[in-house]
Every structure is written in structure tokens, then in C-alpha cells.
């Protein structure tokens, strides 16, 4: 049975125009029933719809913002910002050291794919964590989340921006692509395609954090979301996302795009599963690997490539 996340089903966007598409409530309920997810179906049954059975877009937007606001609390508690800086700091140091940043003098640009409410980008901006030469951009297909992320950034006077649209269609190239909690949304060939798109871009590296697929992950997700989140949709999707997490082998296999050296930080064998709830898969241009390892210092021992991990992808 596939594990579905309700938030994936109740919003739909035209990938080309970015326009909002209507979503029929009974269709979402049918898909959840087919997946054997009666609890998820009950949650969707309670969402408002018009006479034609189309989910109320304004209500869905409010719900998505509320759930993402609650979700941010988990990111705050797990110190996601610090986790990113732990890897991104050395990565940008390596990029600066190799002076391969397109054309020299061009600002470095970090693009957060599927930025949601933009917590990561806003946190980095608020803490000046990557330095003033790094432009911070969040991109998401959900216009409501992008709008709220921009409002929050303006309210706190943060130096960052948010864009509604496709992260690979931006007018200015990214230096580094990042994401948090996005990878498990891609299934099958879409996962490798996601990495290939970045390898084919002018970007020098990517660094995508996602849930570590340990046996503890679904249990931990249940406890954590039960304790911290109020809305049943957030609790439901939190556990579903832990069940959908990709294995280390799958991620490294998919990230092996042409022109990128795939690396995994803190794979299962090297990390305490209680401490490593999220960890990144990286891709760096081959000339960046050595400077990155130097910049990471002792922490570089936790950085492994496919040849060190072995095993067949799931």
C-alpha cells in the first residue's frame, strides 16, 4: 500500500503556468481509501467543499499555512537551521576557496526548493549564517505558502526573497540548491530526474535534507507529531512522510547525476538514529569534493560516497 500525504492531494498546480487547479474532495477520499488510509479519508471528509464537491481553495490555503506554521515548530526544536549551516557553511567556504563561482564577483545564490513557509531561508537570513555574499531565495509551487513566507520575511525585515514557481526556471542561476523534507515526495524515476535537473543546471552543488529512513523514524514521527501538532492533517502527514523516507542507498543512487559527485552525510551506519532525524544527500562538482572535506574538518569522516556505502537501491 502506498503511503499518501494529504497535503500532496488537496492542492494541485499546473506545472507550466503555476495556476491553481481545482481538486475534487471525493477524488482525494477515493485515493486515500484505495491506499487503505481510512483515517486520512476522514480528515479530508471534514474539509469544506462547494456544491460541485471542489475543495474550497481559501480554506485549503489557510489549512496549509496553519499546518506549516505548526511544522516549523518541529524544525525549530530539531535545530534544522544549525544542521544546515553545519554542512552549508563548509560547502560555501569550499566554493569561495575554489573560486569557481560562475564568473567571479557574481553573488552566490542559495535556492531552497519547496521552501514552504521559508523557515530555512528566513532563519539563515536572520542569523546571517552563510555570510552577506550569499543571496537567499525560497521557491515553492504553493502560492499561499510563498505569500505567507514573504509576509513573514517583510515583518521581520529579513534580507531574503520568495518566489512562486519552478525552482529550475528562475531567471538567475542558483549556486547551491537545498531542500528540507522534500525528497520523500518524489517517487520512482522522478527522484533521479530531480537530481538530474540540478546537475544539468549551472549550480555547483546541491544539499537536500530528508528524514533518515530508520526503523525508529515512523514511531518517532508519531510521538513527535502527536506531542507537538494539533491539526490531525499535520499528525497524519508527519507519520506518512517518515514511512515514505528513502533509504541511504536509494538516495545515493538517484543523486549520482552526470557531472555531480554524490555524497551522503551521516548515513545510517555512522549515526545514532535518535540524533539524526534528518540528514542530507549532497551533490558537488568533482573539483569541490576535496575543498569541502578540508572545510568540514573532522566532520568529513561522516561524509560517504556510493563506493563506501554499497548495497542495492530500494
Amino acid at each position, binding site marked *: 500500500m502506498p503511503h499518501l500525504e494529504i497535503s500532496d492531494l488537496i492542492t494541485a498546480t499546473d506545472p507550466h503556468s503555476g495556476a491553481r487547479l481545482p481538486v475534487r474532495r471525493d477524488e482525494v477520499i477515493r485515493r486515500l481509501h484505495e491506499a487503505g488510509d481510512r483515517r486520512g479519508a476522514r480528515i479530508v471528509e471534514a474539509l469544506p467543499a462547494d456544491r460541485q464537491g471542489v475543495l474550497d481553495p481559501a480554506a485549503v490555503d489557510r489549512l496549509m499555512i496553519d499546518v506549516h506554521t505548526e511544522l516549523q515548530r518541529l524544525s525549530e526544536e530539531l535545530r534544522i537551521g544549525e544542521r544546515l549551516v553545519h554542512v552549508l557553511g563548509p560547502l560555501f567556504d569550499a566554493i569561495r576557496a575554489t573560486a569557481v563561482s560562475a564568473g567571479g564577483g557574481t553573488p552566490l545564490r542559495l535556492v531552497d526548493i519547496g521552501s514552504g513557509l521559508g523557515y530555512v531561508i528566513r532563519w539563515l537570513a536572520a542569523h546571517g549564517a552563510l555570510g552577506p555574499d550569499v543571496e537567499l531565495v525560497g521557491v515553492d509551487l504553493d502560492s499561499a505558502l510563498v505569500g505567507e513566507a514573504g509576509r513573514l520575511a517583510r515583518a521581520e525585515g529579513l534580507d531574503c526573497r520568495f518566489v512562486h514557481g*519552478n525552482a529550475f526556471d528562475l531567471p538567475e542561476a542558483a549556486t547551491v540548491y537545498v531542500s528540507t523534507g522534500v525528497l520523500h515526495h518524489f517517487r520512482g524515476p522522478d527522484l533521479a530526474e530531480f537530481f538530474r535537473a540540478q546537475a544539468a543546471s549551472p549550480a555547483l552543488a546541491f544539499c537536500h535534507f530528508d528524514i533518515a529512513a530508520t526503523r525508529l523514524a515512523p514511531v518517532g514521527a508519531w510521538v513527535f507529531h502527536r506531542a507537538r501538532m494539533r491539526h490531525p492533517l499535520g499528525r497524519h502527514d508527519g507519520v506518512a512522510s517518515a514511512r515514505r523516507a528513502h533509504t541511504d542507498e536509494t538516495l545515493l543512487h538517484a543523486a549520482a547525476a552526470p557531472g555531480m559527485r554524490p555524497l551522503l552525510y551521516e548515513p545510517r551506519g555512522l549515526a*545514532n538514529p535518535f540524533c539524526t532525524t534528518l540528514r542530507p544527500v549532497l551533490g558537488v562538482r568533482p573539483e569541490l569534493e576535496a575543498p569541502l572535506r578540508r572545510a568540514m574538518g573532522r566532520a568529513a569522516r561522516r561524509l560517504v560516497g556510493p563506493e563506501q556505502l554499497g548495497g542495492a537501491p530500494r
Partner: protein
Amino acid sequence: MTALGGTPAVALALAALGLVDSAFSGFRAYAGRDARIRKHRAVARASLRGLAVGSVLLLAPVLTACGVVLTAADRDRTYATLTEGGIGYLAPLACYASAVLLSLAAYFFLPFRASTLAVVAGLGPLTLLRPLVIAAACVGSFVRGGGVASLLVGTVAGAAVLCVEPLVHRHWYSAALRSDPTPASVPAGA
């Protein structure tokens, strides 16, 4: 220390735990409703709101205890019984508070990896265990020799502290903190 002699200390310890728990309840009622990055003042305000609501609600067990003592035929004996019950009530709460304190110390003072351990193995599960700990405290007060009177006071106290978070949430934080309820759309490529 005799039961009677220990009464003020037990009462003080229980009141302190109740008030600290109320402040944390205020924080929990607020947490997850405000997506700003810098919010220390808002956190302090939420904790104070929890403390204020808890201070009022905790008058209920105090009044219940007073009522039990004042209506008892043998006030000294009832007083002593309630003190024994208070000690029995305190024991599970003290263990729980110690675990929370330890987890909080680990969370605030250890590096981020170890602080994750404090959250995943400590603070998260401990939040879920809170009602069970209060139930254990009620049982403890009865088993220790506090009898029905202590069970009554303990149950009222437990209900009071468990009500703080939902009351603060309902009154101040039931809606996420947004100035504009209708999010503005940003066009593609903006």
C-alpha cells in the same frame, strides 16, 4: 520530619511544580502558532499567560484542601493525612520534573546532535506522558496513606494543571498569528 511539620514544604513544592508547569503550558499553547524567527518576547508573554491562568486554576485544589480540612471531624488527623497524600503525590511529579529538567539542560547546553536526542527521546515523549504522570501522582497520594481526601485534592489539582494549556490556547492562540488572513499570491517569477 513529621507529617505535620513537613506540610509547608510539601505544599510549597507542589505549588512550585504546578506554577512552573503552568508557565510551560503557556509556552506550549503558543508554540506552533507563530512562524516568525525572532520571538523571545512572545514566548515570555505566553509563559506569563500560562502562569497567570495556572495561578487562578491552582486555587481550586487549595480551596478543596481547605474545605476538606474545615469540614473534617478531626482536623489535625485530616491535615496529617493530606500531608502524607501530598508526599505520595509529589514523588512521581518530582521524578518527572527531574527528567524534564535533564532533557531541557541537554537541549539548551549540548550541541545540536545531542539536543536532538533530548527532544526525540526526552521532551517529546515526556509531553505525552504528562497526564499519565498526574494519574500516577493521584495513585501515589492514595497509596501513601492520603486516602480519599488526598485523591480528591490531587485529582482537582491534576485537572487544573491539565486545563491550563487548552485554556491559554483557546483564549489567545486558537488562530495562527497572521495579520492578513488571506495570503497574497506572488506571481511566478516575481
